[in-house]
């Protein structure tokens, strides 16, 4: 299973896309194939390897959806 540096509490997501514009690596997008408990398309990480764990997404999100981790060294070396 691929390692992901962010955890998305997707049932709190309201699909506002503010994180999508704030992400410098452009690796966040709404998953238009799904609808969460609130009735919105939740955000998803499209490229885990490109994410730098900068946490910009977590700092702009009005719904505190993100938990951000820095990769263990083994993952960075891969």
């Amino acid at each position: 299973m691929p390692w992901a540096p962010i955890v998305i509490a997707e049932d709190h997501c309201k699909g506002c896309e503010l994180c999508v514009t704030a992400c410098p690596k452009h690796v966040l997008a709404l998953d238009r194939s799904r609808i969460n408990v609130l009735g919105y398309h939740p955000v998803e990480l499209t490229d885990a390897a490109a994410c730098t764990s900068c946490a910009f997404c977590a700092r702009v999100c009005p719904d505190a959806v993100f938990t951000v981790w820095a990769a263990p060294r083994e993952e960075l070396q891969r």
Partner: protein
Amino acid sequence: MTLHTPGPESPAPGASAARLIYARPEVLRDRSTHYCPGCGHGVVHRLLAEVLTELDLPAHTIAVAPVGCAVFAYDYLDIDFVEAPHGRAPAVATGIRRVRPEAFVLTYQGDGDLAAIGTAEIVHAAARGERITAIFVNNGIYGMTGGQMAPTTLLGQKTTSSPFGRDAALMGYPIRITEMLAQLPGVTYAARGTIADVGSIGKLKAMIKRACQVQMEGGGFAIVEALSNCPVGWGMTPQQSIEHLKGPVVEAYPLGVIVDRGAVAQPTHDLGCPSPAHPEA
């Protein structure tokens, strides 16, 4: 795509653990809010939760919630709360301050609450130098009631009660109430930030922290205005509202620290001073 959820727990032998960069503060309860998508109230709640946690204040805090969209702040922040009538949070906070001198006292108010119906309360709490910290979320509109014009609404801005745009000849000019309050010697700290982008959010958090530290150090009244958005009331998408915030809103309401008269440092949580400490005028 199924992704493995990282965590610090039990890395493989010889492997390093993932390092936590950011997590939702525990003081911000793990539940969905009623705020519209993209609403800045959520960001301000989170910053407040982070600051209170960093200053070890949650157990010492009594907050006063407003009437406005943030009326349910007590459901989202895991601290003690009192709900005030519309605009009266500074008066309720004054009462709390007088009977609980050791408590950390906070108000959370919108612009309709603080700068319209509650103008007298905020002005006189500030004039008395009440040792309270006011968090003022200015989105230039009455969000809760359906997007009516507020005293803070920009000139030309269309709202449900100014459908042709705010006209100064008919409706007067926007109020920069934080600058007005900053003139009062009882105000130890007054600053304006915004939730418009990552950098500004960091600066806003530093302002909120300073406004809390001022109270902990025995200073007088402290206020932080957070320029915020109301995508629904403004008739914009969340992203459009952020662009509007960065442009005309910040132009009308300049960002920065307006006054910092510096409280006397007391490196303690003992807030047991019964009268507010007044800085020199």
